């Protein structure tokens, strides 16, 4: 691989990895508190991708404004999903199995809904800028990719500040150790959970918008979430930072592999590597081993 290709793929990989990192965090937030894998996150991503599309093509033609609106909308969707799909179970049986089933079902529902109503057509976001790429020497860098990377970085930074400084953020982190902590702190646990879903939804919203903008929108756009989940698992459940790093690594690895062995073989290599990693170290890179209490 030539140096140019290498740098180019690195840049692409990093920006895609940035999105995976967002997804990993969105997934990890919910997992840490409720201890289940929230596959419904892909529903949020898909909904926001379409929402962002319709918003930017029909109403407002400004990138930043539509991005912000979509992001907030994503948070809203996250909260609605929590209220409708997960809260009833949490109050009744709190069975992790049912959470899992419902989250997969929600993902299925949204994907099939868009498939049914809008068909498998690809929807393209409007052109936000005249020049989509710029060159440094012999390297062509895509502006959209850079925007993805920059946005992800900013959002992650803001989120970490939020988690460390605000009361809600600290409550969220506290509940990952024990779900009863917030009530001891005098905070409503429902509020904490809704907030977590709100933040996860925000991340989903951004992801949906960015991916939709960079590639195009189709009903299967939620699949990017699975990459994020993989990153979260590799990075280690319980460690949001680990998820970020793993997300970036995954993005870069993917980009480099595609350049080397082609898009067909890349999934095989990646999934084999992940399976191997999980066998050797089931708790991921930075994760902790959970002991079941008797």
């Amino acid at each position, binding site marked *: 691989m030539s140096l140019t290709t290498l740098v180019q793929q690195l840049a692409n990989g990093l920006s895609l990895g940035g999105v995976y990192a967002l997804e990993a965090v969105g997934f990890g937030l919910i997992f840490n508190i409720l201890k*289940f*894998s929230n596959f419904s996150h892909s529903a949020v991503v898909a909904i926001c991708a379409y929402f962002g599309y319709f918003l930017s093509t029909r109403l407002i033609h400004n990138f930043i404004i539509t991005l912000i609106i979509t992001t907030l909308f994503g948070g809203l969707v996250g909260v609605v999903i929590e209220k409708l*799909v997960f809260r*009833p*179970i949490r109050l*009744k*049986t709190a*069975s*992790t*199995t*049912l959470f*899992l*089933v*419902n989250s*997969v*079902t*929600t993902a*299925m*529902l949204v*994907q*099939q*809904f868009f*498939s*049914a109503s809008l068909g498998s057509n690809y929807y393209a976001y409007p052109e936000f800028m005249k020049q989509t790429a710029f060159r440094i020497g012999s390297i062509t860098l895509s502006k959209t990719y850079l925007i993805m990377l920059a946005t992800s970085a900013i959002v992650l930074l803001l989120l970490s500040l939020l988690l460390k400084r605000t009361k809600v953020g600290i409550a969220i982190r506290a509940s990952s150790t024990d779900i009863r902590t917030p009530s001891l702190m005098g905070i409503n646990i429902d509020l904490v959970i809704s907030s977590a879903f709100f933040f996860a939804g925000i991340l989903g919203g951004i992801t949906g918008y960015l991916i939709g903008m960079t590639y195009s929108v189709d009903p299967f756009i939620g699949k990017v979430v*699975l990459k994020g*989940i*993989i990153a979260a*698992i590799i990075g280690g459940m319980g460690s949001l930072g680990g998820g970020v790093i793993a997300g970036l690594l995954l993005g870069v690895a993917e980009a480099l592999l595609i350049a080397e062995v082609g898009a*067909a*073989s890349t*999934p*095989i290599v990646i*999934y*084999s590597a*992940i*399976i191997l990693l*999980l*066998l050797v170290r*089931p708790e991921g890179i930075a994760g902790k081993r959970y002991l*079941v209490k*008797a």
Partner: protein
Amino acid sequence: MAFYIKVLEITSLYTIMVLSVYLMTGLTGLFSLGQGAFVLIGAYTAAVAYLRFHVPFPLTLPIAVIVGAFMGFLIGLPTLRLRRDFFLLVTFGFGEMTRAALLHLSQLTGGALGMAGIPKRVGLPLLLGSIVVILFITANLKRSRFGRDCIAIRNDEMAAGMMGINVYRQKIKVFVISSAITSYGGALYAFVVMFIEPNLFDWLESAKLIVITFVGGLNSLTGVIITSMVYYTFGEFFRFIDVWRDVLLAFVVLLTTIFRPNGIFGDWELSLRGLFRRKHAAER
């Protein structure tokens, strides 16, 4: 008439898949988003054996089952030690890997174009007969110590181990049996639909199998069969709203998990002895 037969054939085919998943997911609580891989493995093994290696048709079925069981063993061995959601993800990965591999080996498998020209050697008799046999096996297993151990594992893995159950070994047994049956379904599929391609059973279809099992009732084999037959028949009759069928299914699932977490049919099981028992209870 021919249309109704076709519908019944498709329904039976998918019901076999659902039954195969019942052991794994309904009884034992293992969620696999990659069972599609075993459908593909079964279908392609049978098709390749028949078309490329001229293996006589009756032999292709057992070969598919053996290959499926073997792959189940290979995949299960390392992955069944993982916790449930990781297992879900890893099986998803396996599903994707299998699809990618099948696309890649285009010399053998026809790649993205799939394999056509498979003759229709499987009809309703074999399909319905297969369902009866699989039902017989599954119901017996459910009644036996095998079934009790599986349900125990699903309810409380740690306590199950404390009752002397070798949880890991049990999971492997279940996974191998389930995968073998799924592969059998895949092999049948090839000879009913006469055309196979790598995208015919993706993670979504695998998810549907899991979801139908839930709606039917984890403890009710009868419920699962009824739900499966209703769903797939419905889908065939209402082909024009085919995609909306899945949206409807998703809604039904969500309602079921919220209002009837044990499935629509709960613990209800149709059994010959059950009918007698009710008579005795009335007499007492």
